[in-house]
């Protein structure tokens, strides 16, 4: 194995999903030298890309007022941990949200605050579909904007991301007063291929001939509102959607499903944003081992298949994701730290609503298990003592994994707090 020249950075971030990239962007924006190491597909790219910084259900009815009690329960048990480090959520959230908006809108990712308020940010990466089948994220704003509220769901044969039949089966033929009709279209230039992923679809639809055929198919529909599966990459999104609307004279928007393009878009935007702030992204590398000096982690040995490199740092942010993202490992029935470096466990918490049956209890058990942190998001060593310069963020943390955790918005919050502390010690 070839040894690369050792490198030194202020902060090493492990994990290149939303949390890791957000922490890296925040640190790089403060002129820290930051490297982000990661490999494989992130849970962010598998997500619907909906970043609700705070869920709408924890807001008081009056606009802009945060129900701190509800918020505390939603980010439980991090509220205590954040407050122990003399930060308050009320102060953190506006700073964090505005950084998020600024850093991502520079990358072409449109923010919609969907008539709620400043804090309830949904990226356009994740749009209406989840809303129609799950009332969790609402798209009320978008639907209300429709003059004639009949909606055509247009599936593209071979592209699985929007299955209009499934959608009307799940959500009914009338959603919030809007009449919904399913349609399928075959795009002749797609040829005979049987199936494609969202990303393949995005490449295919970058050809003008295919877009023209899609425009023709949309024109034939009698509904003024048309939902299509996601077919544009981030770089193409604004122009592409605008063209579809102007060429057809209809309100065309996309609906997304899990495993589709929107998560990839958010992933792409966040990587660009971290890069634009000056963070170095080290892709396709895994951390083989961490080196310690007393209660500090001092360096990491990174590996590709053929090469090895030692990176020394002042502080470490661990944002490796949960069991699904691969940041935690299931050995037998136990959830473990693949590096065997930090303490994994559960926060002592009250019995949770999810204990309703064995499925929810098991899933909750699993998602509750993760890296433990103490004041200032400091990770614990295996012996249970706090590590001076290593901070945890995102779904890797105990009780933070989706769906029983609070999703991307909550993960970003922990990443923000971790970054503030990592900054102090480096």
């Amino acid at each position, binding site marked *: 194995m070839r040894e690369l020249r050792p490198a030194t950075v202020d902060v090493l971030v492990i994990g290149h999903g939303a949390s890791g990239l957000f922490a890296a962007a925040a640190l790089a924006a403060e002129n820290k030298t930051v490297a982000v190491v990661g490999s494989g597909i992130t*849970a962010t790219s598998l997500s619907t890309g909906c970043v609700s910084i705070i869920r709408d259900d924890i807001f008081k009815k009056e606009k802009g007022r945060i129900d701190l009690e509800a918020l505390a329960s939603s980010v439980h048990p991090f509220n205590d941990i954040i407050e122990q480090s003399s930060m308050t959520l009320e102060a953190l959230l506006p700073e964090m949200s505005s950084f998020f908006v600024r850093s991502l809108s520079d990358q072409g990712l449109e923010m919609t605050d969907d008539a709620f308020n400043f804090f309830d940010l949904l990226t356009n990466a994740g749009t209406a579909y989840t809303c129609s*089948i799950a009332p969790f994220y609402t798209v009320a704003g978008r639907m209300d904007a429709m003059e004639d509220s009949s909606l055509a769901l247009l599936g593209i044969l071979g592209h699985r991301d929007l299955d209009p039949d499934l959608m009307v089966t*799940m959500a009914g033929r009338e959603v919030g007063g809007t009449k919904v009709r399913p349609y399928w279209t075959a795009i002749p230039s797609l040829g005979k291929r049987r*199936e494609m992923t969202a990303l393949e679809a995005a490449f295919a639809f970058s050809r003008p001939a295919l877009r023209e055929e899609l425009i023709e198919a949309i024109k034939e529909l009698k509904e003024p509102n048309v939902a299509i599966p996601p077919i544009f990459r981030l770089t193409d999104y604004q122009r592409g959607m605008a063209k579809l609307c102007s060429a057809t004279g209809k309100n065309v928007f996309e609906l997304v499903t*899990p495993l589709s393009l929107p998560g990839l878009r958010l992933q792409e935007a966040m990587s660009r944003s971290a890069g634009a702030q000056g963070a170095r992204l080290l892709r396709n590398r895994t951390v083989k081992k961490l080196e310690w000096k007393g209660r500090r982690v001092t360096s990491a040995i990174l590996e590709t298949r053929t090469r090895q490199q030692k990176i020394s740092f002042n502080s470490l942010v661990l944002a490796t994701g949960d*069991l699904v993202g691969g940041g935690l490992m*299931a050995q*037998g029935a136990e959830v473990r730290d693949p590096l065997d470096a930090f303490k994994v466990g559960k926060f002592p918490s009250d019995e949770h609503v999810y204990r309703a*049956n064995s*499925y929810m209890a098991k899933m909750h058990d699993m998602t509750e298990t993760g890296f433990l942190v103490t004041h200032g998001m400091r990770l614990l060593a295996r012996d249970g003592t706090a590590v001076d310069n290593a901070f945890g963020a995102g779904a890797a943390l105990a009780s933070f994994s989706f769906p029983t955790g609070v999703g991307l918005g909550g993960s970003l919050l922990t990443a923000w707090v971790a970054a503030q502390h990592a900054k102090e010690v480096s």
Partner: protein
Amino acid sequence: MARIEVLIIGGGATGTGIARDLAMRGVEVMLLEQKDFGSGASGSNHGVLHSGARYVVKDPESARQCATENKVLRNIAPYCLEECGGLYLSLPGDDDVYADKMLKSANAQGVQAREITVKEAIAREPALSPEVLRAVEVNAASVDAFALVLGNVESARQAGAELLNYHRVEAFKVSRGSVDEVTYRDTITGEVDKIRPEVVVNAAGAWAGRMAQMASLKLPLKNDKGTMVVMDGRITKGLINRLRVPADGDIIVPNHSASIIGTTSATLAGLQEVRATRDEVRSLIEETSKLLPGLKKARAVRAYAGIRPLSSESSDGRQAGRGFQVLDHGGQQVDNMVSVIGGKLTTYRLMAEVTADIVCGKLGNSANCRTASEPLLAEAAQIEMEGVPDFIVGRMRRKYGPRQAEVAATCLEDVRGRELLCSCEQVLRGEVEHFADHQDVRGLSDLMRRTRMGMGFCQSGLCALQTLSVVGDGLPQAAKQAVEEFLSERWKGIEPVLEGEQLRQEAFKSYLYSGTYRLRLGGS
């Protein structure tokens, strides 16, 4: 009130086999099954077409029956079988005398069994433990029990029988020594109906005792729980058995895309719902991995349990014979009722024949049994499936036999029919479309039993939603409820094996289902 010559209770292999047998003799038949066809013991065993070798020492009669029926089934329903062959293998500590006895008795019972060298055995099955001491080759095969049961249903219908799934018998009216009237209910719609049968056949498997009770009869029946684990992938070419007195964890059966390891044996106090437990799974993997060390690293996909309705008055579980009994209750003051208990999947046809003979005796019907020689389903001309890979066509053949042509036709009819719906089991959308409108299909599990969608290692990930998209609102329940029920039912089999990669997989599914689609899984 409607009348019928014979009413059969129970739609497993035995019941549907009896329906086929009687209908082919020109008898007017109705069959009632409380759940889906083949969803009791017939669909929850390890799917072995026994050579008979397992029983030659303790139960020579069962062994002889297995040997004969093994040949018959190969002849009448080859598509339901996979001719994978089998090996019996002994390990250090296993009784050498038993091995000798088995070889000797096999000879005497007409069971094909031949000792081969360990070297030959390992050449055939490289995954075997190097500790193996002796090897005996037998002519076992693996059976697709769902295909077999559904083949019998189809064949019986072609011969004029009426078979209803999701119909539960509620009550018998017994007067003057015979069952006069039977009340039954459609368990989905709740509709109740009555029928006057000339003869009642109780082939209700684990529920046979309860049926008998309704006629104030008592059966010499012992329910015995057996647990099996589905391991991902094919670990062996053929069946692997431990060459010793039958015990827990001594069989590995390759079937479709998986390997099934089994079994356990535990007498049940009464009739109850059985589920595999984590401890049973661990001990089965532990024990079977002595023969195949690789099993310890393999991925357990699901575990399930079935009830063996053993006919035994004395001994429990493993000691009990695997023979069957057909009881004419004429001697117990119910002249027109016959119960069939015990037996094996391998001998189901013989059980049906013996039962049908007794029933025909009561009816004065002198027609002969034809089920041993006539193919289960008549061959139909096959359709060329352009653009579908050969191995998928092969899998369809294995699932549907001669009915493959009809299923293929649906796949070709629709533009989306050739899309892959379930990638683990390589099921096409058209296959699911074909069965979606069928009268027998009342829930997503019924589609799974017919097409194998959702049976693979991801245990119904995206395919459950795809299936929902096919069936739309064509199910009796609301779509969300249907998928919740289906996934919750799957969960019962996943829970006991939830470790390692399977745990990650399930966590991912929970992202998808409970996170995004807000489905409520695991029951209430």
